[in-house]
């Protein structure tokens, strides 16, 4: 896929930025979610201890992952669950397709799974003639709009209710011009209830997989994962290898952190623990690597595998809030996505670690204490060293290094710069200069510090 030229984060962000009222709304709404998170976090005096404990549990997981994976597999099998392993996205998609094909199933209902977005499962199954319907309301909306989710927890946060009304009018037959969220949600409820009742296969993601018991936990507010799974003959659960936690009691740490960080609720409406299949039905788990074992070997970046996908780093990020999820051109957007994506394809995602102010707010809200902004900074160094940095930036940096290495060039360059500012400001204050966007260039001083200093010395003599 990397041979397809994609637009960079800044190019895509400038498209999003054309509609200023929408950007302001997006910015304010996500900041409101961030504030709801703060209220919940501040209610618990033990919040910081919870974060530290969660981070340490994940440290332990990453240091024993192969053993935990084997333990989880053995326990799941003894619970009557069938376990599959997929080295990459392609293998994952093929396993899912085979399971459906073997049972003569050509329609499936799916609840939220960012892993299947990463694997582009929907597109793959569509090519194989399999109809997939996303059942999370936000995901259903973006699916009908023909777009990917723009946020891992709030998939259609970039859309206004009037646009959603138009989509529902076209696809689900709601009244023209109807944009009341209550009525639109009821329309989706009726439409998806019929889907739940008629699909023989359901696919879900996995929030936590417990090595000790072989069970896995799925968290939703809507109840869509359960409606799909409990009414289907076959439930396929897709999980990345990093979803493992050692023991059931560790859920008592993670479930306290997850939703408080994500949406500012004390817990999701449903936290469902799947241990054994219902009588007469099957549960299959697909354990997916897709680059995760490589990330585990990158010492500076392995902590990114601690992520529990709460989205807090996106809600707090000034760049994410003002550029929108789609400008990251990857399944998981925002700060965490920007440290996960370069592991998969350093060239294609070379722009993402630069889509940050390195303010550190992401690291401060992360419930498992991932050093996100440090990793963004480290990725920049790796990307430049490997020669994947954006061309304009590379040229500018080279010119700068050349200028700074020659004192004479530095002095004359400074002089020229000051003259330009003074006599020809239009040469820099124009749209061709990317630095000028949303900025007024400063007034240039009459002389450089060096000139002032030597003049002062002359005067003192």
């Amino acid at each position: 896929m990397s041979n397809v030229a994609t637009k960079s984060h800044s190019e895509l962000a400038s498209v999003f930025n054309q509609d200023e009222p929408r950007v302001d709304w997006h910015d304010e709404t996500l900041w409101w979610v961030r504030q709801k998170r703060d209220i919940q976090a501040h209610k618990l005096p033990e919040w910081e201890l919870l974060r530290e404990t969660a981070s340490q549990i994940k440290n332990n997981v990453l240091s024993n992952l192969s053993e935990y994976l084997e333990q989880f597999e053995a326990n799941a099998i003894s619970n009557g669950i069938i376990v599959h392993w997929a080295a990459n996205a392609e293998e994952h998609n093929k396993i899912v397709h085979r399971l459906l094909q073997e049972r003569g199933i050509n329609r499936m209902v799916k609840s939220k799974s960012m892993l299947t977005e990463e694997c582009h499962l929907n597109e793959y199954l569509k090519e194989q003639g399999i109809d997939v319907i996303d059942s999370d309301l936000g995901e259903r909306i973006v699916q009908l709009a023909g777009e990917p989710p723009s946020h891992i927890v709030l998939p259609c946060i970039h859309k206004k209710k009037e646009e959603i009304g138009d989509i529902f009018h076209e696809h689900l037959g709601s009244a023209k011009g109807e944009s009341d969220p209550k009525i639109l949600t009821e329309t989706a409820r009726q439409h998806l209830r019929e889907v739940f009742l008629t699909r023989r296969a359901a696919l879900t993601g996995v929030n936590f997989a417990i090595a000790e018991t072989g069970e896995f936990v799925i968290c939703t507010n809507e109840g869509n994962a359960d409606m799909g799974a409990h009414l289907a003959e076959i439930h396929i659960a897709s999980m990345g290898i990093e979803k493992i936690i050692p023991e059931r009691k560790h859920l008592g740490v993670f479930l306290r952190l997850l939703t408080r960080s994500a949406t500012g609720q004390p817990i999701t409406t449903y936290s469902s623990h799947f241990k054994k299949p219902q009588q007469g039905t099957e549960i299959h788990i697909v354990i997916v690597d897709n680059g995760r074992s490589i990330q585990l070997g990158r010492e500076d970046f392995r902590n990114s595998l601690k992520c529990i996908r709460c989205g807090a780093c996106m809600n707090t990020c000034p760049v994410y809030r003002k550029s929108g999820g789609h400008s990251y051109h990857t399944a998981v957007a925002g700060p965490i996505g920007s440290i996960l994506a370069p592991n998969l394809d350093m060239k294609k995602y070379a722009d993402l670690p630069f889509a940050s102010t390195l303010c550190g707010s992401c690291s401060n809200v992360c419930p498992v204490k991932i050093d996100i902004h440090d990793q963004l900074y480290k990725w920049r160094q790796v990307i430049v060293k490997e020669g994947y940095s954006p061309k304009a930036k590379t040229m500018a940096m080279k010119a700068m290094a050349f200028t700074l290495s020659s004192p004479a060039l530095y002095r004359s360059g400074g002089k020229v710069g000051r003259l330009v500012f003074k006599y020809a400001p239009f040469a820099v204050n124009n749209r061709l200069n990317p630095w000028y966007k949303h900025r007024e260039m400063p007034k240039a001083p009459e002389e450089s510090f060096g000139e002032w200093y030597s003049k002062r010395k002359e005067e003192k003599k």
Partner: protein
Amino acid sequence: MSREKILAAVKKNQFTHAPLPDLEILSTLTATGDDLVQQYTSVASAGGSFVYEVKDLEAIKTILHKEFKPGVKIISGIQELGEYTYAGNVLEESSHSFADAELTILQSNLGVAENGALWLTESQMNIRVLPFISQHLAVVISKDALVPTMAQAYAQIGNADYSYGAFISGPSKTADIEQSLVIGAHGPRSLSVFILV
């Protein structure tokens, strides 16, 4: 085979052993002497649940009679409630046949004051889909079954061998359209919690 390939790659790249942290402090931080009924009620109500303190099952029936018209399909996991269809008697029916259930009443033995969640296992649900497919859900719990936080909740669950279990903390909901909260996404449009005091 991918299994061996993945496990070998993980084994090669995982780092020096990091020990598991102690969870003891977290489970003793919250005082259990607080008024858990009051805390539960305030958190669960904020999450959209209706919480009632009742003396006995008769009091529950009186409330349900007011809320639900006679003749609607009501399934109960509590045999003592008598007048409703006992879930234990319809185990053989297909999950799909409960699509027209108006109300399901279930018993929980574990509730969490910090987040309003109620623990239900498959044996208490009788049929897994019941608490999801029903238009409304009611859960009966004794006040002594409330614990302060998830730490005590998992201590109580221990290594119980359920086949399926869920914490349910309110009615089904979504805020996917412009972050406006809408109750009644795919599951129950209401959750009534009856605390036996």
